[in-house]
């Protein structure tokens, strides 16, 4: 697993975003080493689609989201958004392009400036781009706040800390919608929320997506949440993509050993199934010195010599179901028996 390749990129359909061979590296202090946060991934998102990106911490999923926004710019690779190449855009063009794509962050409280009034925070995008006069801005902001379930009157008087985490996330969502973007990158938007509030925010995102015709990239570590909201899911491990498939297919028949392990590890709120799972040994290796070949081979129950030496490429094993594995759990190859 964890390979390269672009077999899963689509040529038909209204492709809104196309990321190719994205690489993001960070230097480790002055040691000359580097963190290989994202190592050559390719992705595409159709207009109106929700792409889920799952993986454990350190797999590069958040870095991917930020690299698409060019915050910071990726080390190499291409990001084609609405037909325009973002990676070689000038600073001013990029600022303008960012208004078409927005981001929602994990920590709802930290993503709002604690010393400003909530309404001002939501109005800020309009103020930056000087869209409309103050009456128009206010009408627009108040309508959006209503839509996400925040009382505009209270928003005008209060600062973020006077709202709960779930409400702050709603405010964040309102702010991301003000400039009428086409793409919203949600970086773990519900991880910091309580279960009951998480459901409210997920439903809200679905409603807003339908109403505003949005395209979403939904980054999260919780597979159940990702499955619920996504049309298509990409599984990442150590800076690479392991598997891409329509959401329901992926969960019904995972082809990658890592996907299968991830699915088995989720604690199921049902005592009758909980006893059957087998935990995988070990933890992900350091992204500073990723293993050669398939990056998952150090923990994979089916790893062979070819996995240790040769990096698998993404290939289609069923309709629209792509996997980067030498010995997938099912598909055209004869599956290697797992002891």
């Amino acid at each position, binding site marked *: 697993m964890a390979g390269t390749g672009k077999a899963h990129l689509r040529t038909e359909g209204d492709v809104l975003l196309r990321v190719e061979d994205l690489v993001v590296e960070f230097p480790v202090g002055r040691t000359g080493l580097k963190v290989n946060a994202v190592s050559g991934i390719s992705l595409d998102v159709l207009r109106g689609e929700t792409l889920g990106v799952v993986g*454990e*911490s350190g797999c590069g999923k958040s870095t991917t989201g930020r690299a698409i926004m060019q915050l910071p710019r990726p080390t190499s690779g291409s990001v084609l958004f609405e037909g325009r190449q973002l990676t070689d855009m000038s600073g001013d063009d990029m600022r303008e392009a960012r208004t078409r794509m927005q981001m929602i962050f994990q920590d709802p409280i930290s993503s709002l400036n604690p010393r400003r009034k909530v309404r001002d925070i939501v109005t800020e995008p309009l103020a930056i781009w000087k869209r409309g006069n103050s009456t128009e801005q206010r009408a627009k902001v108040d309508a959006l706040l209503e839509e996400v379930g925040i009382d505009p009157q209270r928003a005008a008087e209060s600062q973020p800390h006077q709202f*709960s985490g*779930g409400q702050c996330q709603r405010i964040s969502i309102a702010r991301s919608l003000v400039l009428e973007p086409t793409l919203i990158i949600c970086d773990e938007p519900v991880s910091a929320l*309580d*279960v*009951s*509030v*998480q*459901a*409210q925010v*997920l*439903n809200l995102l*679905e409603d807003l997506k339908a109403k505003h015709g949005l395209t979403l990239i939904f980054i999260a*570590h*919780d*597979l*159940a*949440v990702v*499955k*619920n*909201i*996504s*049309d298509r899911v990409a599984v990442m491990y150590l800076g690479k993509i392991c598997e891409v498939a329509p*959401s*329901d297919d992926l*969960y019904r028949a995972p082809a990658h050993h890592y996907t299968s*392990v*991830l*699915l*088995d*590890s*989720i*604690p*199921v*709120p*049902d*005592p*009758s199934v*909980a*006893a059957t*799972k087998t*935990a*995988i*040994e070990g*933890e*992900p290796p350091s992204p500073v010195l990723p293993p050669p070949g398939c990056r998952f081979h150090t923990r994979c129950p089916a790893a062979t010599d070819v996995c240790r030496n040769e990096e698998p490429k993404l290939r289609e094993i069923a309709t629209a179901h792509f996997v980067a594995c030498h010995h997938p759990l099912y598909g055209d190859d004869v599956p290697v028996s797992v002891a």
Partner: protein
Amino acid sequence: MSIAIQASTRTDDGPLLELEGVRTHFQTPRGVVRAVDGVSLTLERGRALGIVGESGSGKTILSRSIMGLLPTRGTIRQGSIRFEGREIGGLSRRAMRDVWGKEMAMIFQDPMTSLNPLMKIGAQIAEPLRIHLDMSRSDAWATAERLMNDVRIPAAGRRLRQYPHELSGGMRQRIMIAIAMACGPTLLLADEPTTALDVTVQAQILDLLGEQRRDRNMSLLLVTHDLGVVAGHTDDIGVMYGGKLVEMAPTAELFANMKMPYTEALLQSIPKLADPSHTRLNVIAGRPPDLVNPPVGCRFSPRCPYAQDRCREEEPPLIPTVEDPRHTYACWYPVGSPAYHETKARRQREAEVAA
């Protein structure tokens, strides 16, 4: 006072831990926060009890009240906490020091901040052994290595001489478990032990906890927000809401036959892998109660779809179900009661009319 404790004999019969009417309130500028407001429960030897609740439900404060790890200033504590048959609820920190580590131990959510970054791993495991069991340095380090093998840390001998930052999050949590078990406590309190870890590592740590508990005949109090975590790893589950225990039952019984609408709603609001994508989630409207001014009557009544006038006026007591006396719940119109079905049917009709 500490003499009296040492004199009290350890009895092997009777429950390990008994709480009765435990209240922990905090004085704040806003008023008195009723973080834990009258919790009674019993934990038998060798059993695992899960305490489930959302943030602000009082689950963490409850575990800290048992452990006696509360700020001394502005804290009001009431009720009785009996551990091994003796009262520990009113003990000072000084007196609790004999209990901590030796008889009850705790592991926390963040394994990085609970380890001393400047001390070698071995020294940190050896410390409780030397304090409580008067071991020599070499004995303590040898025991530390054995403990590290027990929690399945590879190359234990080498790791002993490493510092916390050289280990991964999962390894650190294993070290925390080794430290907690060093002196053979009879009760282990785990406060969200896997929340900071990745799913694959979480499964390993939960399995390790269960295995160690069985091997050492330890009782476990597992505090978490995740119903999935408790489902597979506990014998009993207590659900907390607004500082109170609202339902408690053996794990299988709870999932098969939940009585409290809050428990039901909590379970329904979790996205499930078995459901097709874009399944509409059931939500609990509103927000958790303000514990300075909790709602009158049932604390869940403002958010409960089945609440009636009685719920908003009178607080329901924790009563056992007819079928299973171990299953207790606090609700006037529990799931499955005629009033519940009636309200549910009416709501459905209303929804259809609205649609």
